[in-house]
């Protein structure tokens, strides 16, 4: 069995999930292969090597949407006869490539993995229903297996000190399926610390009432030097961009402190934040599920509690 990791270059760096998966694979595989899609910066290759990659297959998709060509490249590299493990993160391109590859290889997709163990077989754990139940799944046939890992399923570890071999992969022609073209790229800047890396996260939900009130969240986050998050309801309502969304279809965060303001705690939100070290929730509904995962729950009017808290914090600075 050979382990393959999918990596996409974003801002001259490999995806965090690729570095995490490469680190984890060191515990079960001596030779780790990476398919790295993007421009291919020296920094990316060096980082992958430092996390444990031995061979990096580099595919530059240029203006093509990478999903179809990347899946075709992996199909050629892995082969449907192998018993290889192909690890993806939960990013959008990861899921695009994994889906297409599974059809090409006839391989199952074990998604939302929170842990992978390799003994005499590949075993994947994932949690469902907002983390209430843990499911263990195994592939039932022979052949390659595709695993899509949740963010932070593994811990990134540097220090492998490998100078990886770089092999260039020609852009495969996949016909109409691969004809989607990227016309332009747009970066939307988010103020404050990066949500996924932040040590403190303050998130707002529909309980805030209306879009203007989201300023309460911004102010509290800025006082604590934390990142700002939001529930899907708030993102759907257009109060804040999608990049703020924490939960099943958004980001997964594990900060040391998570403050949930006006958030009821739907399963889909809990799955993205319940592993935070300390959780504080403020909500007017005493039965809100968010309180079941909170270290401290304040049942009350957030429009009283948050301004009072912000003032008290301001006095201390």
């Amino acid at each position, binding site marked *: 069995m050979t382990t393959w990791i999918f990596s996409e270059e974003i801002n001259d760096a490999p995806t965090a999930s690729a570095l995490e998966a490469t680190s984890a694979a060191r515990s079960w595989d001596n030779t780790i292969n990476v398919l790295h899609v993007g421009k291919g910066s020296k920094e990316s290759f060096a980082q992958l090597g430092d996390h444990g990659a031995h061979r990096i297959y580099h595919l530059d998709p240029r203006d093509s949407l990478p999903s179809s060509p990347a899946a075709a490249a992996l199909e050629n590299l892995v082969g449907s006869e192998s018993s290889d493990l192909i690890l993806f993160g939960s990013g959008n391109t990861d899921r695009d490539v994994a889906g297409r590859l599974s059809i090409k290889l006839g391989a199952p997709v074990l998604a939302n993995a929170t842990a992978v163990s390799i003994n005499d077989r590949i075993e994947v754990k994932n949690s469902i229903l907002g983390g*209430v139940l843990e499911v263990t799944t195994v592939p039932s046939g022979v052949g390659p297996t595709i695993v899509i890992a949740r963010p932070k399923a593994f811990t990134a570890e540097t220090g492998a000190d490998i100078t990886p071999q770089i092999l260039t992969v020609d852009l495969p022609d996949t016909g109409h399926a691969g004809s989607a073209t*990227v016309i332009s790229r747009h970066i939307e800047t988010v103020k404050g610390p990066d949500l996924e890396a932040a040590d403190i996260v303050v998130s707002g939900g529909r309980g805030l009432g209306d879009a203007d009130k989201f300023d309460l969240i911004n102010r509290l986050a800025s006082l604590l030097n934390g990142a700002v998050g939001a529930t899907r309801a708030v993102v759907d309502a257009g109060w804040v961009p999608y990049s703020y969304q924490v939960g099943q279809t958004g980001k997964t965060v594990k900060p040391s402190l998570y403050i949930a303001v006006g958030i009821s705690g739907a399963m889909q939100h809990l799955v993205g934040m319940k592993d935070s070290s300390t959780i504080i929730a403020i909500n007017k509904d005493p039965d809100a599920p968010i309180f079941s995962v909170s270290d401290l729950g304040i049942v009350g009017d957030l429009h009283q509690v948050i301004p009072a808290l912000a003032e008290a914090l301001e006095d201390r600075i």
Partner: protein
Amino acid sequence: MRVAVCVKQIPDPATPYEFDSNNHLIVRPEDQVLDDTDRYGVELGLQLSQASEGTTTLVSMSPSGSMQGIRQALSMGADKAVIVDDENLRGADAASTALILAKVIEREGFDLVVAGTESTDGYTGVVPQQIAELLGIPALTFARHVEIVNGSVRIDRQTSSGYDIVEASLPALITVTAGAVEPRYPTFKGIMEAKKKPVEVLDCAALDVEPIIGQQIVSINPVAAREAGRIIEDDSSGYLEIIKLLEKIKVI
């Protein structure tokens, strides 16, 4: 334009899910609702087909039950529904779902396939891409804005740091994120009309496909619940409790 919209009926997410201890599968009640994430796909499909005097066909694979969820989507304005319901599909994985849906879509004829990004209950999140691969068409995924330009589909594709504008000629598949469009509420007229719209129910034999079981669940275990901490009623000093905890964990 002929638009095929993939939809799923799921148990109401507001009710607790039950599992069958024999096969580890979700127990599906007679009444299932339309997956909330699919409302965006239905709305977009309706907008695009109505702008071109085309058709919107719903395709679905799930126990049909009372068809409550399918009727919900029809009452928004879709023209017809084809649903695949077969005992042998219980526990079928994402690839089987994609294989079945692709067969139905091919049979119905299409210019554009629309799907949500992932279902709320299973959330594997790869079925649309698998359908695109089976149909040999481009998949423009995670769209937060969609338009048709000179016979091509152009989307704003959500990325981790912003968005890319991506374009492909038809036929193609798109997946839409919540917020791409504002789903309409069914009107009374829509609800009445939905009762008369054609709903075709097929089994695997009718499509000449065999489900693939590529993986199996070996166990489901409850996770040790996180202990709930202290819950207090705010008597206008609640913020002080927060300050105390912030001090204790050395945030301030």
